[in-house]
């Protein structure tokens, strides 16, 4: 497991895949997915991870969550049309009233994810605890999931990568998206964006287990009206917004 996390080994696998792919693939598939816990432990369906975002508290111009995500997941932070953005600040202005909201937009970790439905190989998958991930060893880079996602939550890796976080496997030619920082969540930590938002004193993002009635997020969801983005699509998103 540790050996598999070394970048050189992954690089070797990348180039060697053409000749040896079929032979060695079964052994390395486990490690294609970002994860903190041992694979055999698995994720529990008793938990459903979710996020509640209070747009009223999200500050205009603040990008603490975006920066934290880039650092944690080894993204360049560049914002060209071909660069990956796992979380972005979205400013929305109502066409009639002119009222504005700021909010972070990220993979909504849908319970009925279109990206998983359309993925031909099964690389896009939903863990038992609701986190939607891409197994980067099975992804063939067809980008069908990007066509299917209603939130433009996914990015395609357009160029070779260097200096990566060993806990977050990424690779040229594969599609990727927010993982709820699964490598942290599996160690009982908060996603990097949530931590950064709190550290900046905004407290606009609340992360936790939607299935646990005692959790702060479950209580907040009962106390405040919140919405699913594009709720009309019936995807049952794990990320909810309040204040819109």
């Amino acid at each position, binding site marked *: 497991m540790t050996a598999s996390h070394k970048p050189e080994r992954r690089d070797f696998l990348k180039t060697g*895949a*053409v000749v040896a*792919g*079929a032979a060695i*693939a079964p052994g390395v598939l486990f490690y294609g997915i970002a994860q903190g816990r041992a694979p055999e432990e698995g994720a529990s369906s008793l938990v459903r991870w979710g996020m509640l975002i209070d747009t009223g508290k999200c500050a205009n111009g603040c990008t603490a969550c975006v920066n934290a995500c880039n650092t944690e997941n080894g993204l360049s932070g560049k*914002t060209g*049309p*071909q*660069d*990956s*953005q796992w979380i*972005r*600040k*979205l*400013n*929305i*202005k*109502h*066409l*009639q009233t002119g009222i504005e909201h700021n909010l972070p*937009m990220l993979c909504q970790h849908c319970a009925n994810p*279109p990206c*998983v*439905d*359309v*993925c*031909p*190989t*099964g*690389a896009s998958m939903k863990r038992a605890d609701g986190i939607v991930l891409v197994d980067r*060893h*099975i*992804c*063939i*880079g*067809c*980008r*069908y999931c*990007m*066509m*299917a*996602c*209603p*939130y*433009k939550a*996914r*990015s*395609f*890796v*357009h*160029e*070779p990568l260097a200096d990566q976080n060993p806990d977050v496997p990424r690779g*040229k*030619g*594969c*599609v990727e998206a927010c993982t709820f920082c699964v490598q942290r969540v599996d160690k009982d930590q908060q996603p990097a964006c949530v931590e950064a938002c709190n550290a900046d004193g905004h407290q606009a993002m609340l992360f936790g287990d939607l299935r646990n009635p005692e959790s702060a997020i479950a209580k907040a969801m009962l106390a405040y009206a919140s919405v699913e*983005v*594009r709720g009309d*699509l019936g995807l049952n998103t794990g990320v909810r917004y309040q204040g*819109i």
Partner: protein
Amino acid sequence: MTDVTCFSADCNKSKLFWGLLALGGLVMLSTLSAYFYIEHHGHIVTGMNNQIVWGLPHVFAVFLIVAASGVLNVASIGSVFGKKIYKTRSPLSGLLALTILAGGLAVLVLDLGRSDRIIVAMTHYNFKSIFALNMIFYTGFFAIVGLYLLTLMDRKLKPWSHPVGFLAFLWRLALTTATGSIFGFLVARAGYNSALYAPMFIIYSFAYGLACFLVVQTAMYKWNNIQIDEYVLGRIKNLLAVFVAASLYFTAVLHLTNMYFAKQWDFERFILVEGDTYPMIFWLGQVIVGGIIPLLMIFSPGAAKSPARILIAALLVIVGGHAQMYVTIVGVQAFPLAIFPGYAETSSFFDGVVHPYSPSTLEVMLALGGMATTFLLTTVAVRILKFLPIDKLDQKH
């Protein structure tokens, strides 16, 4: 069928044959070099990005895949509906179905982010995915049409050609429906939110397939110095006209029904009137060049006596088909996705703005590889086997 003149008998056209192969080979070489270049540097060297994720290669690939199932229509009319002038053309129709599909799939595979994982793609199936279903349909198509060709060409298997032909007919309908559904399933995208996609793709496939067939047939007749019978050409050209007209009709219905839904207005205005280059490609490319002009040419007086005119009409249908695919695939992605309907959106990820796309030369080189594959396979096949359709006079009636 049995007295088909031999294509290679004494044609003494070896030089030209090798010349054609070299030409196709050169295009293929440029495709492969583009492929290796992109494979090495990543898709950053293409015009595609995180907003326009499917570009020119998909336009060409999907055109070929759709045309491949359509070209088999000629054989279906012959085998399933028993029309003689089409029966004569069944072997060529079956062959083209295979070579065109091979061309389309080749481009799709070469454009994958990880085309080296083709084994993974073939061993991991998500059966819920219409894309995976398509792969199964394509594989089945190769097998069934290959078998069908065998029944047509082998005397002993001949009695089987009818049932196998019928199976091929059903299979190709399913295949085109599945291809069309790739887009129909993308509910979040304004442009694809219509159940019409699957039937519309079937109609398109009829037109594109027959047009491809006509082009190849004309080339083969020219090569063998054979004059096509006026009656036969007249029948085929009229069939093409029906398909082209039906395609135009379906296109009109799609846009009219879209306009019926207020939430689709913005998209319709974008694609039909003001959106970048797309309205021009739609009206000029798909409707006028690919629809109206071919119809006028087909119905112009004396068209049945002029294979050249019909050839041009067929070529225009093919050009129009590519315009249609460009609008369907790229145009729909260029239109900003409404994440919050009713709101104006801005972000660092190009939300709320029209996404520009200009294909790089590499994509053009990659895209042309599909046609080159089809061309090479077809040229070799018709050289070594008997595919030339010969009409007997008494077959007309």
